[in-house]
C-alpha cells in the first residue's frame, strides 16, 4: 500500500514538472501588467483584445490550416509509404528508414535554409512553400508511428480477405485501415503538434504576409511579447484539454476499450 502511494506521488511530481511552466503562462494571461515579470492584478482584457487583433486571428487561421493540411497530406503519403516500405527487402527497407530519419537528424535552421534555397529555384515563397516544408518534416513522424503497427499486425487477415475474393483495395479499406487507425491517428496528432510548434523552418520558407503564431511570437520578442499571446496559448490549451476529457469519457463508454489499449 505504501508503495502504491509513493508511486502515485511520483506520477503527480512528473506531471507537475511538465505542467508548472504551463501554469505560469496561464497565470500570465490574466496579468494586468504587460511585463512578463511584474504582477499587475487580475484581468480578462487580453482575452477580449485577442479577438480584436486581426493579425492574431489570421495567424491562428494560417497555423491551424497549415497544421491540418500538412498533417493530412503527411498521413496519406506516410501511410502509402509505410505499406510500400513494409513490403520491401531488408536492404531497401533500411535505406528508406535512413532517408526518413534525415529531417529528424538535421538542425532545423539547416533544413530551413536548404529548403528555402531550393524553393527559390522553382516556386514563389508563400503559404504553399511552408506547406511543402511542413509535410516534409511531418512525414517521418507519421511513418515512424505507422510502421511499427504494421509490423505487429496480423497480415493473414488481409490475405484471408483476398483469398475470399475481396479486391485488394476493399481489403485495404476494410481490414488494414481499421487495424492501422491508432497508428495513423497518433501520426496525425504528432504531425499536427510538430507543425504547430515549428518556428525556424517556417520562418525561412514563408512568404510575405504569411504568419503563423510562432513567427508572430518571434517577431514580438524584440519589443516584449504581447499578453494576448499568453491568452491565446491558454485558450488553445483549454480547448484541447476539454477535447481530451470528452474523448476520455466517450472512450470509457466504449466497450471496445481493449482495442485502444492495444497501443
Amino acid at each position, binding site marked *: 500500500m505504501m508503495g502504491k502511494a509513493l508511486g502515485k506521488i511520483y506520477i503527480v511530481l512528473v506531471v507537475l*514538472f511538465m505542467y508548472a511552466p504551463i501554469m505560469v503562462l496561464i497565470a500570465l494571461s490574466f496579468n494586468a501588467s504587460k511585463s512578463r*515579470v511584474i504582477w499587475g492584478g487580475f484581468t480578462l482584457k487580453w482575452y477580449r483584445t485577442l479577438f480584436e487583433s486581426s493579425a492574431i486571428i489570421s495567424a491562428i487561421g494560417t497555423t491551424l490550416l497549415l497544421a491540418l493540411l500538412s498533417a493530412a497530406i503527411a498521413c496519406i503519403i506516410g501511410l502509402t*509509404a509505410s505499406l510500400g516500405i513494409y513490403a*520491401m527487402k531488408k536492404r531497401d527497407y533500411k535505406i528508406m528508414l535512413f532517408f526518413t530519419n534525415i529531417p529528424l537528424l538535421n538542425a532545423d535552421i539547416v533544413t530551413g535554409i536548404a529548403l528555402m534555397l531550393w524553393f527559390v529555384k522553382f516556386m514563389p515563397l508563400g503559404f504553399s512553400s511552408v506547406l511543402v516544408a511542413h509535410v516534409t518534416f511531418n512525414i517521418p513522424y507519421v511513418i515512424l508511428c505507422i510502421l511499427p503497427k504494421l509490423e505487429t499486425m496480423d497480415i493473414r487477415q488481409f490475405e484471408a480477405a483476398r483469398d475470399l475474393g475481396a479486391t485488394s483495395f476493399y481489403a485495404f479499406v476494410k481490414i488494414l485501415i481499421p487495424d492501422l487507425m491508432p497508428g495513423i491517428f497518433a501520426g496525425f496528432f504528432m504531425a499536427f503538434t510538430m507543425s504547430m510548434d515549428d518556428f525556424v523552418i517556417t520562418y525561412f520558407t514563408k512568404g510575405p504576409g504569411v504568419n503563423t503564431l510562432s513567427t508572430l511570437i518571434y517577431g514580438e520578442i524584440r519589443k516584449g511579447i504581447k499578453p494576448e499571446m499568453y491568452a491565446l496559448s491558454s485558450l488553445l490549451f483549454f480547448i*484541447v484539454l476539454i477535447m481530451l476529457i470528452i*474523448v476520455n469519457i466517450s472512450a470509457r463508454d466504449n466497450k471496445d476499450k481493449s482495442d*485502444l*489499449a492495444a497501443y
Partner: protein
Amino acid sequence: MNKNRVQVLSIPYILWVIGFTVIPLIFVVAKAATNAEGDFTFEYLLAIFDPVHRKALLLSVCLAFISSVICVLISYPAALILKSAKFKDTKIIMFIMILPMWMNFILRILAIQLLISKNGVINHLLSVLHLGQIDIINTPIAIVIGMVYDYLPYMLLPVLNCVLAIPDDIIEAGKDLGAGKFHVLTKILIPLSLSGIGSGITMVFVPSMTEFVIANILGGGKIQLLGNIIEQEFSVSMNWNLGSGLSLTLMIFVLITTLLFGRNSANNRNFVL
C-alpha cells in the same frame, strides 16, 4: 500479397524524399565542401577540429547525454508504476504528455526562465519557506532542465509503450520460478524494454544535440553549444559554408549515435509510440 505491387505505393514518398530531402541535402553538402568563392575545400568539413568548435561539440554531447539519462531515470520508474497500476488507457497518457507542446515552444522556455531565475517563482516560494535560494539560471544545469522538460514526452511515450507491452505472464512466470523483485527488474523488465529506451534516447539525444534556443534563453548566452555556433554562422556571421560544414559534421555525429542506440530500430516496434 504481391510485394512488388505493394512497393509501388511508396513511390509518392520516394519522389517527395528526393525532391525535398535529398536535393536540399545536396545543397548543404555542396556548401560545406566549397569556400565563399565556390572552390572545393576540406576546410569547413574539418572545421570541427578547431578548439572552439570541438569544445562546443563536447559540451553539446555532454549535455545531450545527461538530458537523455535524466529522461530515462524519470520515465522508466513512471512506466513501471503505471504498469503496476494496470493503467491501460495509454491514449490518455499520450495526450497528457503531448498537451504541453500546444503551448508555443518559445513561450514555454520563457516560462521556465521565469520559474528558475534569480527573482523567479521558485526562489520566491523558497524564501517564503525559508529554504535558501537556487542559483542555476545561466548555467548548464538550467539548459539541462530545459531540455529534459522539453523532450521528456519523447522518452516517456516509447518507454511506456514498451513496458506496457510486456506480458504480465512472463513476470508471473519469473516470480513463480523464484525471481525476487530485483531479478524481475534486471532479468526480465529491463531487457524487454531496451528497444523502447533506445528509441527514447535517440528521440531525446538528437534534438538536444542540435538545439540552440534553449541554450540561448536559459544559458543566458554564456554557454555555447554546437547548435548555437551553427545558428550564428547562418544568421549572424553569414558564413554559410562554415555553417553547412559544421552541421554536416553534426549530422554524421548524430547519425553514429542513432545507429549505436537504435541498432535494432528496424525490428523495433516502438520507435515513437
